C-alpha cells in the first residue's frame, strides 16, 4: 500500500474517532446538564405547589371551612390556576388513592408512582407520553386531619428536542467535515509524499544505470535532508562507478598490451625455432636465429619479472626505514654506472646528505628505473643529472634530468600506465616493456609521493619526487 494512502487513511480515522468522541461527550454533557436543571426546577416547582396547596387548605380551615373532598378540590383548582404555569399539570389523590383533582388523565401512571410512596418522601419519574416527555413528581402531604398525594407533571420535551437537534447537527456536520477532511487530507497526503515519489523514481533511474541523475527537493524538512543525502550518495556511487570503469578499462588495456607484448617475442621465437627445425642452415644463420630466440626469451623473462614485481607491490606491506641519501646514491651509482658507461652517457650527482624514510629496496628500484629511462631517452655523449636537496623543514626533493628526446605534452599523463611506450620501436630495441614507469609510479605511491614530469621535445625530461625527512617523518608516524 502506498505511503500516501496510509497517511490519508490514518488521518481520516483519527479525525473521525476524535470528532466522534468529542461530539458524544459534548452532546451528552449538554443533555445531562439540561436534564439535571429541568429535574431541579421540577422539584422546586413541586415544592411551591405543595406549599401553595398546604397554605390554601390551612387558610380555608382557619376561615372555618371543613376539610372535605370538595374543599380539597377547590383549593387544588385554585392553586392550579394561581401557581401552576401552563407547563404544570396538577393532580391530587386522596388517602385511598381516589382522584380528587386532575387536569390530565394521568391517573394510572400516577397510581403506579404513588402506590409505594412512603410518608414524607417524594418520587419522580421521566416518561415519554405521545411523543412528549414529562417529568412527574409525586409526594405525600400531611394535612394533620387528612393527607393527600400531590402529583405534578412538567413537560421537558424541549431538553430531549434540543438533544435531538444537536444529534442531527452532529450527523450533518460530521458527514460534511469527514467529506471535506477526506478531500483535504487526500491532497495533503499526495503533496507530502510527492518528494518521496521523486526520490523513488530517481533511485530507479540510478539503479538502471543513469548514475548522473539527481533529485531536487526544495523543502528544508527531513525529506529535503534525505534528498540531499541521497544526492551525496549518488555522487559517491557515480564516482566509484567511474573509478571502477576506469580500472576495468585499464585492466582491459593492460591485458591487451600484455597479450601484444607477449605475442611479439613469441612470434619471433616460434619463427626462428621453426626455421631451425625445418631447414638445414649454415652455422652463421643458425647462430643469428639462436641469438634472436635468446634475446626475445630474455625480453619475455624481463617482462614477466616486471609484472611479478607489480603484482607484489599491489599485495605486499612495506616497512619504511631511515636511510642516508648519500649511501643510497652510492649504491645506485655502483649499479647504474656500467650500464651508462656502455651507453656512453655521463652521470652528474649532487645530493645533500639527509636521512629519508624509505623502503631501501623499492627506492633503489625506483631511482634505477628513472635513471634507466633517462638513459634510454638520451643520446650517447649526453649526461644525466641527479639532484637531491632538502625542501623546507621536513621534505627532501630528488630530481633526475636528461637532455634526450623529451615526451610530448599530451602523453605526459599516460606514461605511467602499464605497457605505455612513447616510442614503441625504440623501446623494443632497448628491450623495454613499458612497465618501468608504471612500477616507479606505484613505488612512489607507496612512499606517499608521486612522480612529477616536466618535458620538452628535443630538450629532455625532468622527473621530480619528494620524500619525507626521517626525523620529522618518524615524529609524524608516532603521532
Amino acid at each position, binding site marked *: *500500500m502506498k505511503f500516501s*494512502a496510509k497517511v490519508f*487513511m490514518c488521518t*481520516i*480515522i483519527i479525525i*473521525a*474517532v476524535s*470528532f*466522534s*468522541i468529542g*461530539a*458524544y461527550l459534548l*452532546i*451528552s454533557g449538554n*443533555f445531562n446538564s439540561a*436534564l439535571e436543571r429541568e429535574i431541579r426546577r421540577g*422539584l*422546586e416547582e413541586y*415544592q*411551591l405547589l405543595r*406549599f*401553595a396547596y*398546604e*397554605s*390554601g387548605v*390551612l*387558610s380555608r380551615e*382557619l*376561615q372555618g371551612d371543613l376539610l372535605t373532598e370538595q374543599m380539597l378540590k377547590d383549593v387544588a383548582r385554585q392553586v392550579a390556576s394561581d401557581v401552576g404555569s401552563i407547563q404544570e399539570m396538577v393532580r391530587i389523590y386522596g388517602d385511598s388513592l381516589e382522584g380528587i383533582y386532575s387536569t390530565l388523565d394521568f391517573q394510572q401512571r400516577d397510581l403506579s*408512582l404513588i402506590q409505594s410512596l412512603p410518608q*414524607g*418522601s*417524594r*418520587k*419522580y*419519574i*421521566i*416518561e*415519554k407520553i405521545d411523543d412528549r*416527555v414529562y417529568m412527574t413528581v409525586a*409526594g405525600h402531604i*400531611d*394535612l*394533620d386531619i387528612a393527607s393527600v398525594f400531590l402529583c405534578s407533571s412538567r413537560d421537558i420535551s424541549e431538553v*430531549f428536542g434540543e*438533544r435531538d437537534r444537536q*444529534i442531527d447537527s*452532529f*450527523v450533518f456536520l*460530521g*458527514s460534511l467535515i*469527514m467529506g471535506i477532511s477526506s478531500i483535504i487530507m487526500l491532497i495533503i497526503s499526495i503533496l507530502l509524499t510527492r518528494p518521496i515519489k521523486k526520490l523513488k523514481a530517481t533511485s530507479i533511474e540510478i539503479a538502471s544505470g543513469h548514475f548522473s541523475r539527481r533529485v531536487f527537493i526544495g523543502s528544508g524538512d527531513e525529506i529535503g535532508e534525505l534528498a540531499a543525502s541521497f544526492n551525496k550518495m549518488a555522487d559517491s556511487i557515480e564516482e566509484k562507478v567511474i573509478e571502477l570503469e576506469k580500472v576495468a578499462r585499464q585492466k582491459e588495456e593492460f591485458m591487451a598490451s600484455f597479450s601484444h607484448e607477449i605475442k611479439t617475442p613469441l612470434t619471433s621465437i616460434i619463427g626462428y625455432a621453426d626455421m631451425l627445425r625445418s631447414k638445414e642452415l649454415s652455422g652463421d644463420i643458425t647462430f643469428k636465429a639462436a641469438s634472436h630466440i635468446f634475446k626475445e626469451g630474455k625480453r619475455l623473462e624481463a617482462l614477466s619479472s616486471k609484472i611479478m614485481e607489480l603484482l607484489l607491490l599491489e599485495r605486499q606491506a612495506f616497512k619504511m626505514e631511515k636511510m642516508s641519501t648519500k649511501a643510497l646514491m652510492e649504491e645506485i651509482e655502483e649499479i647504474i654506472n656500467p650500464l651508462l658507461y656502455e651507453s656512453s652517457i655521463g652521470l652528474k650527482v649532487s645530493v645533500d646528505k639527509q636521512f629519508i624514510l624509505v623502503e631501501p629496496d623499492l627506492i633503489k628500484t625506483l631511482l634505477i628505473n628513472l635513471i634507466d629511462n633517462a638513459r634510454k631517452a638520451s643520446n650517447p655523449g649526453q649526461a644525466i643529472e641527479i639532484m637531491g636537496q632538502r625542501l623546507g623543514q621536513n621534505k627532501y626533493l630528488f630530481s633526475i634530468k636528461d637532455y634526450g628526446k623529451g615526451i610530448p605534452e599530451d602523453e605526459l599523463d599516460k606514461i605511467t600506465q602499464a605497457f605505455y611506450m612513447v616510442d614503441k620501436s625504440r623501446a623494443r630495441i632497448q628491450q623495454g616493456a613499458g612497465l618501468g614507469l608504471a612500477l616507479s609510479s606505484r613505488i612512489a605511491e607507496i612512499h606517499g609521493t608521486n612522480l612529477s614530469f616536466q618535458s620538452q621535445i628535443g630538450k629532455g625530461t625532468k622527473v621530480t619526487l619528494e620524500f619525507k625527512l626521517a626525523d620529522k617523518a618518524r615524529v609524524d608516524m608516532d603521532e
Partner: protein
Amino acid sequence: MNNRVLIYVAAMLAVALIVGLSIILPKELLYRQENNILGKIVSIEENPTSSTREQRTDEETDSIEELHRKISLLTGGYVEEGMPREELNENIMTMRQAVLSGERQLARLVALGALPDEVLDYANYNLIAYPVVRQNFQNRLTYSFWTIHYIPSHARGDLRGEFSLIVDGKNGKIYSVQWPSSKEEQRINTMAMGKAFAEYLNIEVSSETVERDDRYCVLFSADGRFVIVVELWEFYGSISIESLYDPIVPIGGAHR
C-alpha cells in the same frame, strides 16, 4: 484483481466503516441514554438524617443568648440562604403549627402594644407560607423560619398592602412583622412599640435612640448587638429586629 488492489479495497472499506461508525455509534449511544432515564422512578428523601445538618434541638428557646446567637448567625456573613426546601428537618414546626403559633404570638404582641390592634384582622386573609432554611457553614448548624404572607381578599374589597410575618421554625417567635397601615394608625407611638417588641424578645434596650420621629424609631439593645426598627409609612408599617454585625442584611428588612 490482484492482491494489492484487494488490500486497497479492503483498507478503504475499513476506513469507510470506521468513519460511518464514528457518526452512527455516538448517535445510537446518545439515544440509548434515554433507556437509563425514561420510566425510572427516583426517590427523594424529604428528611435527611445527616447529623451535621440538623443539630439544633434542645436550645433554651426563650433565652436572650440563644436569640442573639441565632440572629447574629443569620446576619453575620456566614449564612447562606436558599438551601433546597426539601431539606427541612422534622423537628421544625409544620406549616399549620407555624401559622397557629404566629397567630398566638401576634395576639401577644398586640397585647404588649408592639403592634396595632388592627393586625389581628389581617390574620383572616388567605395565607401562603413557605419555609426558609439557612445554614451556617462555620458551625454546620441549620436555621429555619417560616415566612407567612396573608394576602388581601379581592372579594372583600380590601386592596391594601400585604401582611407578612417571619416566624422561628423551632419556637414560633416572631422576628419581623409587616402590615398594611392607614393614616389613623400613624398616631401610634413608634418608641413605645419598639420597647414593647424588645420586651417580647427579652432584650434590654439602651436609653439612647439613633433616630426618632413619628414614623420612624430605632432602638439599640443594651449590649449594642441589635437594633429594633419600627417604621410607619403611608401604606405600611413594619417592626423587626436586626443585627448590627451586618446591618445591610436585617432580618425584617429582607422581607420588607
